[in-house]
């Protein structure tokens, strides 16, 4: 018993030492929490992306000693894509955090008011609330490189082959998750429908129906739409593509948003889904940066990926791009303020002044992997553009030139909805004391 007591003391002392050293490390490094969802119904979407995000940060630590010589503390807090757990994770990780990455439109909307008070930037790349682009209203929120409204416009532009008037008289189904994320493109699509005379038919998919969408696809069979646009996440994507194949819907007329284009979603139907398309702000390929990740992370057994083939997937490489935005913003802030250990406010400045040029992408070994991106005070999205990818039966390949959103059309709607949000959440601080420079 005495030995056991001594042993307990040693263990306790050891644990305390480890905890203290971890805390010290956390204080010394760049603390980048990520509110991940590697479990639950949406894990199929989350896991490869989070693997990519994590591996890029680990690679920077291994290869460069971090960012500007400061190691990155990449911390994951598991939410299971559940909004309540997401808010808990935000509260739990915000202490030393330089940023929060909420990873769902629902969580983003919940934590957004808190980040104004806590003065922590939100990085919600490719998701969140489209009006977040208005930096004068949402000073602490960023959603590069394109918003959902940009995505909706670009998909329709692709369908219309650049001539939106050709959509007149057509019927377009929006198959969407019945969730804030899935409903996000509806205001813009309704506006486009009124402008260009096509019929928009929203078809919601409930959380419990994601794996059995027979009712939704019976409706699609009855409606006979010219095109189906999908706003799906997680298991909904595989469920929809399987049903589309089953009901003999012309698969080439089926296009998904960028979260509906994971290689894993297509494995269930394989070659039968040849022709399915998904818009994407990254193109998978064997870029020089991948060699560095293989060398510094994967070959050392530090990655969570199960096989080398996982590194070539759209979503894994998208995870790399998302971490790139954060790393480059931190570097921008370090250089501007002349400090290595930046604070959240300085990182916010770095995000607002982020400029990833073609030359910089080439320098990073990522040329062609993602569009160049420049953000600004009134542009927290960048609206960089995207490409259309097509499933060739085995993998996604690029089938379009760069697509661009019509900013003249979308921006007024963003400003209107941003003002509406600020009014509904008054007193909303807006830019407050933050100068635009």
């Amino acid at each position, binding site marked *: 018993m005495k030995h056991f007591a001594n042993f307990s003391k040693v263990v306790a002392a050891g644990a305390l030492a480890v905890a203290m050293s971890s805390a010290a490390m956390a204080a010394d490094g760049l603390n980048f929490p990520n509110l991940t969802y*590697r*479990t*639950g*119904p*949406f*894990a*199929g979407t*989350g*896991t*490869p992306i989070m693997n990519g995000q994590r591996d890029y940060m680990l690679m920077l630590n291994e290869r460069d000693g971090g960012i500007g010589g400061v190691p990155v503390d990449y911390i994951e807090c598991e939410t299971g894509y559940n909004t309540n757990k997401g808010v808990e994770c935000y509260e739990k990780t915000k202490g030393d955090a330089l940023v929060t990455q909420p990873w769902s439109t629902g969580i983003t909307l919940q934590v957004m008011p808190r980040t104004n008070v806590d003065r922590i930037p939100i990085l919600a790349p490719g998701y969140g609330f489209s009006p977040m682009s208005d930096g004068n209203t949402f000073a602490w929120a960023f959603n590069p490189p394109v918003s959902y409204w940009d995505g909706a416009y670009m998909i329709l532009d692709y369908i219309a082959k650049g001539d939106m008037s050709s959509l007149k008289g057509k019927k377009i189904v929006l198959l969407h998750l*019945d969730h804030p994320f899935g409903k996000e493109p509806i205001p813009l699509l309704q506006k486009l429908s009124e402008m260009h005379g096509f019929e928009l038919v*929203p*078809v*919601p*998919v*409930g*959380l*419990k*129906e*994601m*794996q*059995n969408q*027979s*009712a*939704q696809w*019976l*409706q699609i*069979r*009855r409606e006979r739409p010219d095109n189906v646009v999908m706003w799906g996440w*997680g*298991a909904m994507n*595989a*469920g929809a593509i*399987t049903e589309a194949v*089953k*009901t*003999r819907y012309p698969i080439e007329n089926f296009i998904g948003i960028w979260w509906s284009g*994971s290689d*894993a*979603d297509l*494995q*269930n139907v394989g070659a039968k889904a040849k022709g399915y398309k998904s818009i994407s702000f990254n193109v998978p390929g064997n870029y020089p940066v991948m060699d560095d990740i293989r060398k510094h992370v994967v070959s050392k057994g530090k990655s*969570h990926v*199960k096989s080398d083939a996982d590194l070539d997937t759209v979503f894994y490489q998208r995870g790399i791009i998302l971490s790139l935005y954060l790393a480059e913003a931190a570097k921008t802030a370090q250089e501007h303020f002349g400090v290595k250990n930046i604070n959240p406010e300085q990182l916010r400045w770095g995000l607002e002044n982020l400029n990833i040029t073609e030359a910089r992408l080439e320098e990073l070994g990522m040329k062609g992997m993602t569009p160049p991106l420049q953000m600004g005070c009134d542009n927290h999205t960048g609206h960089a553009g995207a490409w259309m990818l097509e499933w060739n039966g085995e993998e996604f390949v690029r089938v379009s030139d760069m697509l661009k959103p019509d900013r003249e059309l979308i921006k007024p709607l963003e400003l209107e909805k941003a003002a509406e949000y600020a009014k509904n959440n008054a007193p909303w601080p807006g830019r407050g004391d933050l100068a635009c420079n």
Partner: protein
Amino acid sequence: METLYSVFIDPFVQMFELPDFFLQVLWEGLVSGVLYSLIALGFVLIFKSSRIFNFAQGIMVVFAALSLVGLHSFLVPFVGNEFVAAAIAMPLTLGIMYALAMGVERMVLRPLVGQPDIILFMATIGITMFLIGFGEFVFGGENKVMITEALGIPTGSIEFEPFGGFLLLEEKDVFAVVMAIVLVVSLLVFLNKSAMGRAIRALGDDHTAALSVGISLSTIWVLVWFIAGVIALATGIVWGARAGVSFALEVIAYKALPVLMLGGLESVSGAIIGGIAIGLLEKIFEIYWGQPLFGGNTETWFAFIFALIVLLFRPQGLFGEKIIERV
């Protein structure tokens, strides 16, 4: 007037005008109903023998399917043949489900004997949390493809042209219906004709009386949890064949709740008839009333409303036992 027309006339006009489409709706409803019945059966069996509402039934579906797919992918490089690997993976998965049943009985149920029902219910939530974490740790969270062809499940489709229209039956859906029927009949025979089956029913009727005649609580609990594991595996295979294997399969367990409300928690036949009734009715309602009148997605709530209405008239469910407690 227009509303009355769309509620009382138009749906029936549509059914009459497009009879092939109506048949397709009925088939899809039947398939969904059979699958709901399978999930509900797992709940009923455990409740019948131990009065525990097993919250972990949904994650058991995921865990069983992940084990089968995971073992198969692990074995393929060693045996070099997909079919042989599946033939080995299947009994190994059943072994895992048996080990899980043993573990649950030894580590969770046995120490809690005599505790209130709510404690046992909470314990099954604990089992759920454990299986989510353990499953994610071992198999990862990525979507996986069910080994449909290696298991010999047909993947083609059968097409008909009734009334000059088009009706399509997926062979794997036909397989699911046939498998569910075989499973249910076997279960009914086992429960009614075998000594073990009678012991399960006796335990469900009265724990103390069953124990007094020498029925082993531990053996029966292990057996029942194992059978629930087998049902979970069957459910995982047929649902996984439809849209892949992922943690999202857990969510479908919630579809069994209205089935249980309707059929009664103790009734095997209630689970089957309740499941098929809900599958058919929610599909018909969604297509002919839900989508035109409510904008769709009525499957989320229709079954609960329907079950609540039934409960107003039969609080024990359609097939549940009416319990009279004397004070």
